[in-house]
């Protein structure tokens, strides 16, 4: 139904409303029955709800759906901000209801509305017909909604009956209803409290519109009107059904009151606005629909009076509908396209008006008075409306000429819009206003808004109101908070006691709900500056931090023949696109208008037709598609694992083989894969050994290739074998391997040739190569020399050899990447192994790097345990093969540098031979063109991969952020953790390409520049104090932490490999884990309380406050846990309470605690239980299993622990306070 609406064909459709209904019903398939029996059909779908009720609900839902699409034109940006308000507006509207109805009547455009409104309220009886179709979906909403609505239902049920009797006219509507039905369902799903009120309002509004426009305009108008109308319509209906309705009204009013209460003036504004809106539509309609209008108008007026008899209304509606089809409809349809824009605009205007109302309404109106008040209001409004209608027609028409509908609406909008923003950021108003205004000005924007409206409508109700109010209050509190100037040198406790959370972008509620989780997708600036100049002025890095393949507990997976994408930029459809009408959507990245394919009209979730905006793709910002063969260059590869093991003397001595083989044996069945999974082993020392594991052999056959200059595969077919067919042989081999080389005297390592062999072995299929290496490769291609000078480890000047020594490993990695093979490196060495060169094999093939310094299976049990845990995770975690990731962003932004392990194949395409859930990425962005004409920007990452089950899948994340034009807003939206992680990535690049000291300077300059830019432009406090906005208050601390991090520190003895490994981790760890590495968390654990504890899996996990990283926080009486990401330290004070030592550590007193303690015993005491559950909770969810060290106050190991107290002074580095003074000095220079 809706589909035709947008297009000319509509006329026909319109005409035969019944037909439409029927069509819709059929389309909906499941839901609505054929048009004639629409009631039944819908009712069935709706389910339990009373039929009448259902009808209404459907109708409600329908309009919203239309609206969405209609508004969709522009990007949703403007809406976002406004949407939240908008919703609230709805609520207010409902309260205002009385007023609005009148307005609707007056405007000529309103005619249609009226017809519907009247019927609906009244009774349903009249309108019911129309509604019937709609009812089914709506019913869901109601049900979910609230009691009040139910009451409505009852009242209306009567009408529903009527409708059944009623007729063809109604049928037309049903179709629309069908579309909406889906939306309603979705609504039902959402657990918003507010539903009751909104749905009711909406349905009415929609109905009204639908009746008016009937065939032609429905979609667009419905939306706009529905929102407004709904509120309006209610009042009228309410009066007739005395008690229940009143209740509803009260409830509504109650909601609205908070928003409304405010003042006379605001209300006046609202009225005006509404009038405008109303007037506008009429203007547009008038030319075409005059006849219909005239008819409808009278009718509507009559009907409007709540008391009007149902019969009358029905008659009217019938008449109007009947007439319209033949005459008006035809006329309208051609015009329809034209009218839509205007309507859209009107809608906007209306919405804005509502906004205003809401905002204005801050003063609460007395609930008790509601009914009376409402009536009064209605009267007033009517008067207003009349006057407005009278006056409005003239002004409106001029601006509204179809071609340029935008102007009129825009005028009112900006001012109104500003208010909502103002609430959000009281101080920031101007900036936000600007941002919002541009959107409105564009003709397109309004459609976008409408799209958002959809959302609003979907989540109608009290929830919205309350939430929006809550949001407002929160925002007003929080946003200023992020800009609150903090005097850094004065603030002693800068670190919050609870974990720092990602700032929430300043979007409207619906968009916030839909937005991508910060765990997967974060931007350093949650308010994107409008221009590059502004970004440069802010001196902050702009970039994205991604964790695209994160383990998710809830992920909508979509199977569909056609994956809907933008035809020009190939963006996947996402929640932030706007639907222009049922059949078209506008890409939010390139703004191209695309067709909605037929298949997309059907919503598998609700089994209904015609609600493309309710599809899961459009309801979730993180989705996964099952891709068709279009997305394959070759059949999906099987999971192939190859293990390349160092078996030289050094390796055997270290004893890792036992641990590896044991882990493999344990996890052989848990390796991700299907029946095609293949596995192979290669070992090497100075020669290369292959293992023939072909099924049918009695035992594994070892084949030795000693020609390492020209490696060949002895038996290419039987080295990689099917895991299931040769499982016994594989087990035999794994059992035998640890002892096979015990007496080896071979000390050389021919890693290069072994890798070449592995590449040859893997190239036909691709897959994963796991390399275990324990020393510097010393033979064949890729041999390396020791480059580290131990005397330079603590040098404060130059740190050399951070870059690779040869391009052998890089070339190999690129070759592997080309053959979809990733190389993962496990470096278990006790001495320098030139990780910076070796790491290249993983960096560019999208592998991962594990490093175990001074690994020894018996001498260093904690490392051995770490290897064991990490191997378990490594072997069993999810894996994606032959993956590519593309990151797209709104036109105007561009990506210029990528960080992570991958190969950038073309400008925005990252080639990832393998993807694992622990890989993080970062991207730097620049602003190429001004973003002034948009208020939202979106980023989308699409990760196409082959799952271990041989399915081709696409995981799509979409992030939406607002655009701002003032510097203050940019600072307000800084995500300091993301910024630090991006800076760390940039600093790694810098230290490799130029020098470490350069990178350190750059880090310090990043703080100096941003803080001085802030103090010189935004704050007007004198320069002698070091001021930072609250959002940036942790910036200096984190940068200091970075400077003291292993990767960047100087002056402290740091082994080159350790440093390089830290750099590798910065590059490829996701933000959450990286932040712990940069700035560890310190907890006091000798007094863990259940207060504030959280419950995880039936366990109570205490949440002690985070202490700042300074020795001043350590007391000898306490015990402290430091969480450094990959290491845990428990520091036990000298005078620590003996009961703690006894209960948790299991030793009688401090003196008896051993020097090397890496385990906490599980004791049967409360404090032990708490401590262990806390530590386990910290340990879970991180890819690198942390080692635990218990550090006694006097033990030599305590230097390790004290190194992490980054706020304290060390011989080589500033304390935090000194660092602040240093920055201040730099700024004043």
């Amino acid at each position, binding site marked *: 139904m809706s589909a035709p609406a947008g297009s000319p064909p509509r006329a026909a459709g319109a005409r035969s409303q019944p037909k439409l209904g029927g069509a819709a019903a059929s389309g909906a398939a499941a839901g609505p029955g054929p048009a004639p029996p629409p009631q039944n059909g819908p009712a069935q779908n709706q389910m339990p709800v009373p039929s009448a009720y259902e009808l209404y609900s459907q109708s409600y839902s329908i309009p919203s759906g239309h609206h969405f699409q209609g508004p969709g034109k522009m990007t949703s940006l403007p809406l976002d901000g406004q949407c939240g308000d908008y919703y609230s507006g709805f609520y207010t509207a409902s309260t205002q209801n009385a007023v609005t109805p009148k307005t609707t009547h007056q405007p000529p455009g309103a005619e249609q509305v009226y017809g519907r409104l009247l019927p609906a309220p009244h009774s349903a009886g009249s309108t019911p017909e129309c509604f019937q179709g709609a009812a089914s979906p709506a019913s869901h909403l109601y049900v979910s909604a609230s009691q009040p609505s139910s009451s409505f239902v009852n009242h209306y049920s009567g009408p529903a009956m009527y409708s059944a009797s009623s007729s063809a006219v109604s049928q037309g509507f049903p179709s629309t209803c069908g579309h909406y039905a889906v939306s309603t369902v979705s609504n039902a799903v959402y657990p918003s409290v507010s539903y009751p009120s909104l749905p009711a309002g909406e349905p009415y509004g929609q109905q009204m519109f639908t009746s008016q426009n009937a065939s032609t305009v429905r979609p667009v108008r419905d939306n706009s009107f529905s929102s407004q109308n709904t509120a309006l319509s209610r009042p009228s209906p309410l009066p007739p059904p005395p008690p229940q309705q009143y209740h509803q009204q009260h409830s509504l009013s109650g909601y609205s009151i908070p928003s409304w209460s405010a003042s006379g003036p605001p209300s006046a504004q609202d009225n005006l606005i509404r009038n405008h809106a109303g007037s506008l539509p009429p203007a547009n309609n008038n030319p075409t629909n005059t006849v219909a209008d005239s008819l409808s108008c009278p009718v509507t007026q009559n009907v409007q009076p709540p008391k009007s008899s149902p019969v009358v209304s029905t008659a009217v509606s019938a008449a109007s509908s009947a007439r319209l089809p033949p005459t008006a409809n035809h006329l309208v349809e051609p015009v329809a396209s034209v009218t839509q824009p205007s309507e859209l605009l009107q809608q906007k205007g209306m919405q804005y008006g509502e906004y205003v109302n809401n905002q204005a309404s801050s003063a609460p109106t007395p609930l008790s008075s509601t009914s009376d008040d409402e009536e009064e209001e209605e009267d007033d409004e009517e008067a207003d409306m009349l006057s407005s209608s009278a006056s409005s027609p003239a002004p409106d028409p001029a601006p509204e000429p179809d071609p340029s509908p935008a102007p009129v609406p825009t005028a009112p909008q900006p001012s109104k819009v500003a208010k909502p923003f103002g609430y959000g950021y009281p101080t920031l108003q101007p900036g936000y206003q600007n941002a919002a205004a541009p959107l409105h000005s564009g003709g397109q924007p309004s459609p976008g808004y409408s799209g958002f409206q959809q959302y609003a409508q979907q989540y109608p109700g009290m929830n919205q109101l309350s939430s929006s109010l809550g949001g407002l209050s929160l925002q007003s509190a929080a946003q200023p908070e992020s800009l609150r100037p903090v005097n850094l040198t004065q603030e002693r406790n800068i670190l919050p006691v609870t974990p720092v959370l990602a700032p929430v972008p300043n979007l409207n509620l619906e968009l916030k709900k839909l937005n991508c989780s910060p765990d997967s997708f974060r931007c350093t600036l949650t308010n994107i500056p409008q221009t590059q100049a502004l970004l440069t002025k802010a001196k902050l890095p702009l970039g994205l931090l991604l964790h695209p393949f994160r383990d998710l507990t809830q992920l909508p997976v979509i199977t569909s023949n056609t994956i809907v994408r933008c035809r020009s930029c190939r963006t996947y459809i996402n929640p932030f696109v706007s639907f222009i009408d049922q059949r078209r959507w506008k890409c939010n990245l390139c703004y191209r208008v695309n067709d909605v394919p037929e298949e997309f009209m059907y919503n598998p979730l609700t089994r209904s037709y015609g609600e493309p905006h309710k599809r899961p793709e459009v309801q979730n910002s993180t989705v996964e598609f099952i891709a068709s063969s279009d997305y394959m260059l070759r059949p999906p590869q099987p999971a192939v694992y190859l293990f390349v093991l160092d078996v030289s003397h050094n390796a055997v001595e270290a004893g890792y083989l036992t641990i590896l083989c044991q882990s493999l044996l344990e996890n052989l069945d848990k390796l991700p894969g299907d029946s095609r999974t293949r596995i192979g082993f290669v070992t090497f020392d100075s020669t290369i050994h292959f293992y023939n594991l072909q099924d049918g052999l009695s035992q594994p056959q070892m084949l030795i290739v000693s020609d390492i200059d020209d490696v060949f595969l002895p038996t290419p077919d039987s080295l990689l074998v099917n895991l299931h067919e040769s499982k016994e042989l594989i087990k035999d081999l794994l059992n035998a391997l640890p002892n096979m080389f015990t007496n080896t005297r071979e000390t050389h390592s021919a890693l290069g040739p072994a890798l070449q062999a592995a590449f040859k072995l893997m190239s036909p299929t691709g897959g994963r190569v796991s390399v275990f290496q324990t020393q510097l490769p010393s033979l064949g291609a890729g041999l390396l020399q020791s480059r580290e000078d131990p005397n330079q480890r603590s040098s404060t000047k130059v740190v050399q050899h951070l*870059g690779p020594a*040869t*391009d052998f490993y890089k*070339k190999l990695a690129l070759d592997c990447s080309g053959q979809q093979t990733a190389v993962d490196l496990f470096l278990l060495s006790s001495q320098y192994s030139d990780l910076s060169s070796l790491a290249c094999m993983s960096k560019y093939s999208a592998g991962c790097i594990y490093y175990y310094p001074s690994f020894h299976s018996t001498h260093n049990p904690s490392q051995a345990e770490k290897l064991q845990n990490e191997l378990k995770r490594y072997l069993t975690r999810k894996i994606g093969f032959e993956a590519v990731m593309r990151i797209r962003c709104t036109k105007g932004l561009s990506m*210029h*540098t990528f960080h992570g392990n991958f*190969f*950038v194949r*073309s*400008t925005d395409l990252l080639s990832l031979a393998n993807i694992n859930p622990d890989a993080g990425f970062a991207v730097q962005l620049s602003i190429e063109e001004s973003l002034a004409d948009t208020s939202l920007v979106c980023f989308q990452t699409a990760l196409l991969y082959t799952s271990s089950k041989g399915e081709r899948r696409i995981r799509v994340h979409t992030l939406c952020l607002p655009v701002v034009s003032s510097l203050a807003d940019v600072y307000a939206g800084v995500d300091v953790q993301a910024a630090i992680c991006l800076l760390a990535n940039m600093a790694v690049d810098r230290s490799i390409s130029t020098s470490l000291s350069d990178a350190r300077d750059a880090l310090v300059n990043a703080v100096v520049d941003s803080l001085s830019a802030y103090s010189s432009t935004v704050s007007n406090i004198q320069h002698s104090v070091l001021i930072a906005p609250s959002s940036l208050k942790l910036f200096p601390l984190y940068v200091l932490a970075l400077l003291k991090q292993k990767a960047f520190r100087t002056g402290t003895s740091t082994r080159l490999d350790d440093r390089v490994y830290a750099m590798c981790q910065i590059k490829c760890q996701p933000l959450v884990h990286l932040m712990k590495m940069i700035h560890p968390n310190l907890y006091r654990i000798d007094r863990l309380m259940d207060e504030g504890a959280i419950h995880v899996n039936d366990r109570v996990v205490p949440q002690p406050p985070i202490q700042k990283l300074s020795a001043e926080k350590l007391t000898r009486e306490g015990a402290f846990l430091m969480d450094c990401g990959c290491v845990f330290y428990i520091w036990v004070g000298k005078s620590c309470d003996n009961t703690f030592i006894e209960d948790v550590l299991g030793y009688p007193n401090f003196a008896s605690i051993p020097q090397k303690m890496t385990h906490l015993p599980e004791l049967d005491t409360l404090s032990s239980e708490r401590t262990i559950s806390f530590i386990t909770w910290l340990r879970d969810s991180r890819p690198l299993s942390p080692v635990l060290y218990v550090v006694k106050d006097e033990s030599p190991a305590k230097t390790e622990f004290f190194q992490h107290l980054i706020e304290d002074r060390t011989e080589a580095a500033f304390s935090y306070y000194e660092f602040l003074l240093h920055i201040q000095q730099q700024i004043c220079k």
Partner: protein
Amino acid sequence: MEAVVFVFSLLDCCALIFLSVYFIITLSDLECDYINARSCCSKLNKWIIPELIGHTVVTLLMLVSLHWFIFLLNLPVATWNIYRFIMVPSGNMGVFDPTEIHNRGQLKSHMKEAMIKLGFHLLCFFMYLYSMILALIND
């Protein structure tokens, strides 16, 4: 004799012009995603040394034949070529490294460099042409 010097320079310059154009085309192919970074870089890296030799030879020729002005004009470009070649980090696969070409705007700077060289070689071309004709007339 002078004519021979300039005829040679002219031919060499033509070759360098073609090389610059080739660089530009290949880089823009990469920019437009027609070829991947790996093949682009291996194509271009092959021509780094010929370009360097070609240009150094002309520069030295000018020095030997005592054309000071032309020599000084060529000197900075020749120095830059050599500097760039020498300064390639040991782990990189040449002046053009596929793993870095998309980072930090390297592609753009390579493009700019190729454009500037093209302009420079065109200028030289006409100078050599003029000098050659002058030399031929004088002979």
